[in-house]
Structures are given as structure tokens and as C-alpha cells.
């Protein structure tokens, strides 16, 4: 069966188009979304939705918390209990949601600027505490929603509206940051590596503790345009040709430099007690029978 001719409306007696398989996980009344053509956030959402479907979880118990920015809009499009919070505080908010009901699975879906710049403090402390949540950090090297400003992940010499002479600051290496703060699962993929990304997200969701999946995505309208890197498709082709899979690589070597190879893969997968495990263990030790472990309702 060939695709319907798009210039015409299908005749009334034609078979109704079946729905997209992801529609049950999306707020279809708000689709099409606001993200630009070629934006990788949509692909990341597809990978996330696919991961959730494959896990066959009770989706009533999954919450998405987003901050502000392009990626921050993810919460508004997912048909889960979702929160669009303040800039940088998604991780802190998610901490409250999780501790209020530990039986929930909480996913923080936010951008590089939101999580690592203004939200840096909450990110490092939640990693330190090993809060049980999964952070999907969409990294497009720029602050896109506000018009293309320099971000703490902008590679050196990259142009942005607030680095008109080229960025001279050393950017963050997110996997290294996450590892050094205590995250138990750290992976990085590009939006092109959809299947590996889905698999990583599945692993991250199932892993108790603070897991971080960084997704390098194309931002054609700001990062690509300001730096004359071509269209979103050109950016994707760049990621195709210049990403190198090195599972288990030392996170200190994972810096991203302008137009050089990007190392992707799963870097950290280790065990540590989560915040609540440590809390229950310690208080159980100190208070004995008088303490009822905190597990939520």
C-alpha cells in the first residue's frame, strides 16, 4: 500500500489511518509540538516512550518532571503525571515527588542549561545522595528557547548570541560531572543512536539510584545556524560520522570539542545504596525496632 497522496484529503470511504503507536503516551491534543523541524528532542521523546513501552510498566506510576527551556516542554507533551517546574529546579522538585511517594518512578527530562547551569547545585547533590531518579539530559550545546545563548556545555570557540567572539570558557563534561558526584549509571548517546539510546534509557530506568543519560541532539535554528554548521540533517550527519562508541571509557576523556569526535556509550554502571536505602539502614541501626522503614504509602 503506497502512502496517501498528501495534497488531497482521503476519500470518506477510505480506511482510517491507524494511530501512531506512541499516541497513548502523548497528549495528542497538543501535537504538533513546538519544537523546530530537525530538533532532536522529539526523537529523544520517541526513544523514551519506546523504552517505557518495552518495559511494560504501570505508567500511572511514572512521573516526568521538566525544567524550563526547549527540553523543558517535554513534560507538557507526555501523557503521564507531569510537572513543568521552574528553571533549574526540576531535580529538587523530583526529589520531593519521589520522597513523597517512593513507589513512583520519577524521570527528570531537561536540557543542559537547565540541569547543569542554574540547576547544577541540585544535580550534584541529587547525584551525591543517589536519589532514585533517572535524568535524561538533552544537550544541544546552547540555550535555545531564549534565542541561542552560550551554555556551560558550549564547546570552546563555538559562537552564541552571548559569546559573539566565540566561547572561551571550558565547558562541562556532563558524564564526568555525573560520575564524580556519585551517579550510578552514566551514558551518552546522540539522537541518531535511537536504538542504543532506548536501550540505555531502559537500563537507566531500571537501575535504582541516580542515573544520567546525556543525549546530544541537533539544534539547527540556533547552534547550527549561528555556527554555520548547516541544517539539522547536516548536524545529524556530523554525529553519524564523528561519534565513536567507547563503552566504559574514562569519563575524564569525554570532553566535547568543536567539530571533533564525540565519544558515546555507557560509561558508568555501578552499585551504591540509594538515599532511602541509606536512610532506612541508618535509622534502623540507630533506632532498632522503634523505626518503621520509610517506604511510602
Amino acid at each position: 500500500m503506497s502512502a496517501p497522496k498528501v495534497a488531497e484529503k482521503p476519500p470518506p470511504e477510505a480506511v482510517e489511518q491507524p494511530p501512531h503507536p506512541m499516541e497513548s503516551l502523548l497528549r495528542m491534543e497538543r501535537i504538533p509540538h513546538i519544537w523546530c523541524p530537525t530538533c532532536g528532542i522529539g526523537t529523544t521523546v520517541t526513544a523514551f516512550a519506546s523504552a517505557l513501552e518495552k518495559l511494560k510498566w504501570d505508567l500511572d506510576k511514572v512521573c516526568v518532571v521538566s525544567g524550563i527551556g526547549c527540553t523543558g516542554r517535554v513534560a507538557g507533551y507526555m501523557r503521564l503525571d507531569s510537572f513543568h517546574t521552574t528553571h533549574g529546579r526540576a531535580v529538587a522538585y523530583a526529589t520531593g515527588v519521589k520522597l513523597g511517594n517512593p513507589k513512583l518512578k520519577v524521570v527528570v527530562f531537561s536540557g543542559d542549561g537547565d540541569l547543569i547551569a542554574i540547576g547544577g547545585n541540585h544535580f550534584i547533590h541529587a547525584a551525591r545522595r543517589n536519589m532514585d531518579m533517572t535524568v535524561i539530559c538533552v544537550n544541544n550545546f546552547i540555550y535555545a528557547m531564549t534565542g541561542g545563548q552560550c551554555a556551560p556545555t558550549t564547546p570552546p570557540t563555538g559562537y552564541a548570541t552571548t559569546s559573539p567572539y566565540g566561547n572561551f570558557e571550558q565547558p562541562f563534561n556532563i558524564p564526568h560531572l555525573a560520575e564524580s558526584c556519585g551517579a550510578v549509571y552514566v551514558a551518552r548517546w546522540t539522537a541518531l543512536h535511537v536504538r542504543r539510546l532506548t536501550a540505555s534509557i531502559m537500563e537507566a530506568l531500571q537501575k535504582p539510584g541516580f542515573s544520567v543519560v546525556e543525549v546530544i541532539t541537533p539544534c539547527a535554528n540556533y547552534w547550527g545556524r549561528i555556527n554555520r554548521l548547516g541544517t539539522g540533517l547536516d548536524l545529524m550527519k556530523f554525529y553519524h560520522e564523528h561519534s565513536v562508541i567507547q563503552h566504559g571509557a574514562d569519563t575524564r576523556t569525554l570532553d566535547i570539542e568543536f567539530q571533533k569526535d564525540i565519544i558515546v556509550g555507557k560509561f558508568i554502571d555501578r552499585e551504591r545504596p540509594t538515599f532511602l536505602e541509606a536512610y532506612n539502614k541508618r535509622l534502623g541501626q540507630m533506632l532498632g525496632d522503634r523505626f518503621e522503614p520509610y517506604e511510602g504509602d
Partner: protein
Amino acid sequence: MKYWRRPLDSDEVEVPRGEIHIIADRCKGCGFCVEYCPKSVLEMSEEYNAKGYHPPRVKDPEGCVQCQLCEMLCPDFAIFVLPKEQKEARVEG
């Protein structure tokens, strides 16, 4: 698909066939699906959708092997693949 030699189990393998559905009005003409289809089944059409983008069109309906890469890559939930009836693989010598 061209093989150097004929695989021993070529009689038993059934290559999946996919039925591509394109939700044209959701498409934003990014071109990911066309670029990354491993069987080059899609091409950008000359038609316009309601927003003025060129959605893809299926140029080789028999070639789709239901890998669903287009479905996974599409940022706009505008293309997906459903399994078609299985047919035996045709192996070219």
C-alpha cells in the same frame, strides 16, 4: 539484497515487510527518515502539507523491511511502520 554466497538458511528466513504510514500534516520536512532508511524506501515528495513542508513519500513500498528506524528517528511522530503480511525473501544470486 546482493550476497557473495547464498546463505544456507535463505529458504527459512522470512524478511519482514512493513507498511509505512505517514501522517503528512504532522511532518516538518526534516528529512531524517529519507536519509537514514537503510533500504532507501523513502524520498521527499514535491507535495506540500498544510504547514508548507514537504513530507516524505514511499518510493519503493516493497522494499520496506519494517526496521522502524524512520519511526524511531522522526522527531514529530509523523511516520510509523506496521507489519505487512510476511512473504518469502527473494535472494538475488
